[in-house]
């Protein structure tokens, strides 16, 4: 599933439209608001769903080599955060939907956590 399709299916707002790479294939996802946990456990190339909009989200997501971040529950990052993400080639999306619903819809599209017990 590529990011462009995910964004369209979930009606996400694209916060970094100038970036390329929307055709990047995303196969896994992660949901967490504890960024130390994201850093340790998020799958490379995956998409992160979080309501944390702090600047460190970009640092953590870049370090974890994530493909994109979806901010849930209507939370929006500052312009500084968006600019940093653009510089790091990290795609950012936003939605009013809550994390649970975002993850449910991603799962329905075949994007799983890849860590089922």
């Amino acid at each position, binding site marked *: 599933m590529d990011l462009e399709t995910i964004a369209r299916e979930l009606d996400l707002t694209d916060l970094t439209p100038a970036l390329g790479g929307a055709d990047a294939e995303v196969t896994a996802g992660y949901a967490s608001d*504890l*960024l*130390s946990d994201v850093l340790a456990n998020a799958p490379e190339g995956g998409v992160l769903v979080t309501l944390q909009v*702090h600047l*460190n989200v970009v*640092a953590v997501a870049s370090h974890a080599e994530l493909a994109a971040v979806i901010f849930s529950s209507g939370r929006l990052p500052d312009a500084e955060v968006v600019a940093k993400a653009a510089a790091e080639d990290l795609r950012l999306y936003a939605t009013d939907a809550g994390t649970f619903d975002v993850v449910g819809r991603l799962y329905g599209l075949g994007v799983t956590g890849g860590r089922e017990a």
Partner: protein
Amino acid sequence: MQTLRADLHVHTALSPCGGDEMSPPAIVDAALAAGLDMIAVCDHNAAGNAGAVGEAAGGRLAVIAGMEITTVEEAHVVGLFPTAAAAGNAADEVRAQLPAIDDDYTRFFGEQFLMSARGIVRGAETHALALATPLRLEEAVDLIKRYGGLAVAAHIDRPTFGVIAQLGFFPFEAGFDAVELSRFAPPGSPAAAACADYHLPIVRSSDSHYLEDVGCVATALTVDAPTFAELALALKRREGRTVSDA
């Protein structure tokens, strides 16, 4: 110059999670018994008992008025203020952003007692101090500095509520004056070693919620007097003032 033992993070019965035995005179007695020369009173999102602890100390113990702010990222930031009045004004700004407590609140979170210097309950805080404020980390640090305070990244070695646990990396841009290590990160531990990279002074504080923990770890301050101004100089490592492990 003198070397003081300071525990710069002690809660009172005002914190919902603080023991009800954490009254001003009991805290002073516990601090003196632990050989401390200075404590900082840091309740969650409030500072209503700091003045009473200072009064209870009656000059036997230096008492810094502080507050531990919970940011929107659920990171804890300790503010240390020049006076109880400054801490009170800063706390009024923080408390106002928290909802009022409801009937079930104290059952789940605990009592929030305001106490006199003699340890008499004189009221209760009506805002929900256990909750996170809407303040972003940088806003919390800025608020502390607007009231002349020092901002300390609380218990950064802990798995929850420290800035590193919540944010993954240390937020250099926030403008902290110091980082705090808990009793669980003794000198030589990996967490303590990692702190060296931040190039900020390190304080060791008990984060006491119960009397038995007051002073279980401490920071050594080499200063001219047990005052806020000297503490500020020590954290800035100016004019020969320093902080080190106690």
